[in-house]
């Protein structure tokens, strides 16, 4: 069983998924950040593959990607870092990136290398469900890789069902229609939306993401899904921190406390 599925099996609520960008703030920061996050009680880690044109991402993630690329982050290196990390760490790891990165690397090679480095799942926001279903699904299964599709308040009911059915990792529920990095609070309209999603997807695991930035928003989101994903707020927290390990610990504690 895939490590992600295992988490959702064993833990039924308030699953904390933290996102950060590989290669940021330093080229090999990942090697410090992941163990620290794991240790502090993070349930799943989403590693952003830095991209030149991250068009679903807000300023924080854009900036971290730019720095990561300047630092020299590349997929080959990323896979090496993860392989190394996997010698000691067991936390579920998800890669998040854009479809063009996968295509250029070569789909088959990418899935194989990711899996053998120890990756458990992928999030590719601009991969159409249809293309996944007809061309990639088999390959994901073969490599024991999960996938998460996104739904938004604009997604139709049928499409939510389809996204849930295809999401072998978990369904990624976007809090509101926006790019990453916003920090608005959960509004009434959203609750209706969350409830609707929940009613449509029966028992597909789900996490809420986009805009979750502190303990209260994490807890609120966790009321309507199995947990939530924090990205930009975490990256902002690392800014200027000398000791990444303690910063990670600090952050996770602040969320979970």
């Amino acid at each position, binding site marked *: 069983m895939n490590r992600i599925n295992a988490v959702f099996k064993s833990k039924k609520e308030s699953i904390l998924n933290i996102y950060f960008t590989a290669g940021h703030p330093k080229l090999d920061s990942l090697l410090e950040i992941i163990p620290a996050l794991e240790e502090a009680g993070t349930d799943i880690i989403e590693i952003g593959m830095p*991209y*030149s*044109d991250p*068009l*679903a991402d*807000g300023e924080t993630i*854009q900036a971290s990607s*730019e720095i990561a*690329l300047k630092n020299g982050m*590349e*997929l080959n290196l990323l896979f090496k870092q993860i392989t190394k990390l996997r010698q000691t760490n067991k936390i579920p790891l998800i890669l998040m990136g*854009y*479809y*063009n*990165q*996968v*295509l*250029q*690397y070569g789909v088959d090679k990418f899935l194989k290398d990711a899996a053998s480095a120890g990756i458990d799942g992928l999030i590719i*926001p*601009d*991969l*159409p469900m249809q*293309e996944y279903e007809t061309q990639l699904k088999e390959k994901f299964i073969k490599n024991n890789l999960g996938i998460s*599709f*996104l*739904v*938004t*308040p*604009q*997604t*139709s009911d049928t*499409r939510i069902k389809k*996204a849930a059915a295809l999401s072998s990792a978990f369904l990624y529920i*976007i809090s509101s*229609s*926006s*790019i990453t990095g*916003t920090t608005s609070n959960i509004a009434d309209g959203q609750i209706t939306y969350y409830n609707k999603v929940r009613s449509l997807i029966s028992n597909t695991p789900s996490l809420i993401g986009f805009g979750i930035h502190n303990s209260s928003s994490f807890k609120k989101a966790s009321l309507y899904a199995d947990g939530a994903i924090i990205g930009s707020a975490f990256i902002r927290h690392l800014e200027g921190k000398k000791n990444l390990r303690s910063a990670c610990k600090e952050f996770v504690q602040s969320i979970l406390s």
Partner: protein
Amino acid sequence: MRDKYSVDDNGYYGKFGGAYVPEMLHHNISELQEKYLSITHSNKFKKDFSQLLKDYVGRPSPLFFANNLSQKYNAKIYLKREDLNHTGSHKINNTIGQILLAKELNKKRIIAETGAGQHGVATATVCALMDLECIVYMGAIDIERQAANVSRMKMLGAEVRPALSGSKTLKDATNEAIRDWINHPKDTHYIIGSVVGPHPYPDMVARFQSVISEEMQYQLEEQTGRNFPDFILACVGGGSNAAGAFFHFLENESVQFYLAEAAGKGIDSGHSAATSILGSEGIIHGAKTLLMQTDDGQIIEPYSISAGLDYPGIGPLHAHLIDQKRATVFPVTDTQALNSALMLTRTEGIIPALETAHAFSILDVMDVEPDSVVVVNVSGRGDKDLPTYKNHFNF
């Protein structure tokens, strides 16, 4: 039999095209996919569109037999005068179409990206005409080098937002526009300015621009006795002016398509936007097409003196035409384009946009017969580029 060069039902031209968008855009994109044909084929739309093109844009744009050029290059050279359109380029054909569509879709807010500023001006213009809010994203570098168009947009009431990321040019402005659309999923229509982006944009924009070749057919018939030319020359950024000029001749293989792409400081200089030569298959701004990228799939920052051609991709239709050898691409450097701009100005009294000037450079290298009928698509006028011309030529 299906046309070889039209979009298929899934939004592909051969292997290029499609709609690779994050879920946040899915609703808007699929709304467009479902409705663009029925709306644009309705009688009301067709009537409004053609009336605005006639009375507001000033169409038909002339097909001018360029006597002096013809003598110089020993061929029959005709100029399709999109530079005479209201706002000064072909871009307005598309924005008229899209603003009518946006009204039909009941959108209240319009966003656009712009490189040279022509598409931004054309968008700001139709928004003023239709009284809709307008926000234009423009690379910070382009804001500097196309300052006149920035003034025009502001005067028209649009907000111009600088794109500060990446190379601070057209690609980055497009990213920002897409992000804006993600953030405004309900009330906003995104007027893309070229035959790029996710399906249905490439096909939709090409159809709005196809008025160019539609007119060319009867204008050529009148002037040459034959309703098609031997060659059509056009510059290609995303490729909307070229798509419009080719559209009705796509399946007529006696018409040869010549594209000029920006070779900047030279193909091997590391400073160019020569997508067809330096690019490979990949995804940019929601479409599978040719683009300039690293082995790792990072998009390479392009360069061209011409803000409208300074783009690392190309529309999927053109990727397909190139792939099928239906179109030939000529790389044109900054210097060649500047010289062609001066040449055309002095020879025919027409100051072209820097983008357009690239197309004229093809005349210097192509083979023609004296009775070859060559149409050059004059995609825009050069007013916006006067400071560049002035500096370069030391006027």
